[in-house]
């Protein structure tokens, strides 16, 4: 599978490239494994894979600092891995086990990590957008110099609450980056069929929020755009919109046959634009790594993912008395 040769001469170190490669590959292999476990009946319900979109979270996370916060939708496995959550805990949540981040009570769509400032994992399209602005509200209120990231898709971009949030975030100059992951399909409805104006990065114009579109298959471009957005927020100038143009290779969820697009369309994306292949190519042509080096990385990541899967299979189901815990916090 040959990626299109990248024309830019990136000013990026070998270590950086290698870390992006590893992080993106981890997400991809993790998701493939999740798909496999779903097929075996070990993961139930809805399971939304992130395959194809890896460069978005890896690029954004590369620009963040400690204490920055993030919140996203139900297509959340990649975000959790990219912000440093343990693949074992994530996979065990997918299998609904005690060792999962939510003790098995949240599932694929509802996972959180206070430690990593990951605020979910939300199953209702668009609901995470005001929540993300609320995280930023708290930081501003407390006088922290932190930035929050509210990720949502091209589908959620048409939700009313998004615009209510844009208005207040701009009015109150909240340090929040709205990351629109435009993967071109809201479940089965293409952007063209759902959005009166397909240029989503301009959606903040009526609220004086600057926006920018970026190639979401290019991790370096995403990182660069994120740095600019973060600088804007941290300097107290209010929110910023990044429309990251990306593509999901798999269906909306595991049970989506994806008949709304051709096999050729997906194949073309994979062959010409794949985010991991692009970095792989840079590593090889820049002589930063040999085929052997990359094979060793593949092997290491496969082992990490297999360990996560083993853990997720072996971790026991939650104790039955967990049914009645965590409904209320102690007053």
């Amino acid at each position, binding site marked *: 599978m040959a990626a299109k040769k990248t024309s830019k001469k990136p000013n990026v170190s070998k270590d950086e490239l290698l870390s992006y490669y590893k992080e993106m590959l981890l997400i991809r292999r993790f998701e493939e494994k999740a798909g496999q476990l779903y097929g075996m009946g070990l993961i139930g319900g809805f399971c939304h894979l992130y395959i194809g979109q890896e460069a978005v979270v890896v690029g954004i996370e590369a620009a963040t600092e400690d204490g920055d916060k993030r919140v996203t939708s139900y297509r959340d496995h990649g975000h959790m891995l990219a912000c440093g959550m343990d693949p074992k805990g994530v996979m065990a949540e997918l299998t609904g086990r005690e060792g999962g981040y939510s003790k098995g009570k949240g599932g694929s769509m509802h996972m959180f990590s*206070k430690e990593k400032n990951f605020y979910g994992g939300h*199953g209702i399209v668009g*609901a995470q957008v005001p929540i993300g602005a609320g*995280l930023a*509200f*708290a930081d501003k209120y407390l006088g922290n110099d932190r930035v929050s990231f509210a990720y949502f898709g091209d589908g959620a971009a048409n939700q009313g609450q998004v615009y209510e949030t844009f208005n207040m975030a701009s009015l109150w100059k909240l340090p929040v980056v709205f990351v629109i992951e435009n993967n071109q399909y809201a479940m089965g409805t293409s952007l063209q069929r759902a959005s009166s104006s397909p240029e989503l990065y301009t959606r903040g114009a009526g609220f004086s929020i600057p926006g920018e579109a970026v190639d979401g298959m290019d991790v370096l471009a995403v990182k660069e755009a994120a740095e600019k957005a973060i600088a804007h927020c941290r300097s107290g100038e209010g929110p910023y919109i990044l429309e990251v143009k990306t593509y999901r*290779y798999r269906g909306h969820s595991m*049970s989506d*046959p994806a008949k709304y697009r051709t096999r050729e369309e997906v194949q073309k994306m994979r062959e010409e634009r794949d985010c991991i292949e692009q970095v792989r190519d840079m590593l090889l042509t820049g002589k930063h790594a040999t085929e052997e080096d990359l094979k060793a990385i593949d092997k290491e990541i496969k082992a990490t993912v297999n360990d996560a899967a083993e853990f997720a299979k072996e971790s026991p189901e939650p104790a039955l008395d967990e049914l009645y815990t965590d409904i209320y916090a102690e007053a």
Partner: protein
Amino acid sequence: MATEILMPALSPTMEEGTLAKWLVKEGDTIEAGMVMAEIETDKATMEFEAVDEGILGKILVEEGSEGVAVNTAIAVLLEEGEDADAAVTSSAPAASEETAAEAPSEAPAPAQAAAPVEIVVPDEPEIPEGTEMRPTTVREALRDAMAEEMRRDETVFLMGEEVAEYQGAYKISQGMLDEFGSKRVIDTPITEHGFAGIATGASFAGLRPIVEFMTFNFAMQAIDQILNSAGKTLYMSGGQMGAPMVFRGPNGAAARVGAQHSQCYAAWYAHIPGLKVVMPYSAADAKGLMKTAIRDNNPVIFLENEILYGKTFDVPVLEDYTVPFGKAKIWREGSDVTIVSFGIGMTYALEAADKLAEEGISAEVIDLRTLRPLDYDTILKSVMKTNRCVTVEEGFPVGAIGNHLSATIMERAFDYLDAPVVNCTGKDVPMPYAANLEKLALVTTDEVIAAVKQVTYR
């Protein structure tokens, strides 16, 4: 080592499917992500992608096969130089193990409590003998409670429409902007869905928001954030993070504002595990419960009433007067019948009790004060004494709080009942505007009296 390719589950409910078509053949080199086959589920034809790499050694299930159970081995993937038949034999048992693993684990024990989670609460702190009592309106009591808590805790703030410069649409936040400034008393645009979500996010990140809805009718714009984000996150995060916040505002009918502005949401919110629901009647309770609500680490729905705002009650002059959740208040002791109510319903309950006393009927009147947690014990104890019960509320009759109380009393005190419990509620109609019809739609003192006579066979 050879890898078995298993029939995948391709939907949440799939148990078997048809292997419609193989898109690869034996001997083909397989790469991860390659589409290998088409599989028909009960819903759709799905493409089945390879996860592992290798050479397709043997196809075990021919295309066109129907009713192939999930997790059946359908093909074998080989590494370079491996022998297909040997691999098939050696790995066959693995498939059945997988199938066994998928069988449901031990049947869950029957849930021991069908009733909502009970919460043990400490006794109400007694108001010390000789405490000065000051006549205060419910409006002032609510403001005092919020202001006291904001002085006590920097992370508490108030947001909502017209709460700051306008001093509150119903003047509940009068003077608060002056004292706390615009950082902590925040006017919002008219966007309930958005600001309820922003406040919920802020609560996840360590603040304690008080969200004022101009009325709870408008909170329906924000219902998803209240239920799904604020109400459920603690559970969904396995206890890692929740929403310590208060959603408050007037609820229920005011006067002559018609159907869209006159509805009681008590039963709606009381339905949701994860929320706490408060509906005070008196000013003292409004104050003590509001302070408890702001300190509580859970999302609290605080249902006020526009008509009660201007009513004056004695409020104890104490430095820190709080009222615990889950503890009903007995306003009047009696022996012939138990009248249970809350919020403005208490007006009719107490009035009815006065009139009934003149006729020689002794009614015990209980104010629930909080609907979640609910003080079942106080009600049951009273009903076991009086053997009769009437509930009073302003909300609609279907799925009313009174329905739930009736069911609980039937389940737990059936043998003590001398008459069926009667629920007095608002009528089963949208609120009409015309003065005479509006009066007819609301619950009345006369109806409560009639209900008491019904259960006491007078």
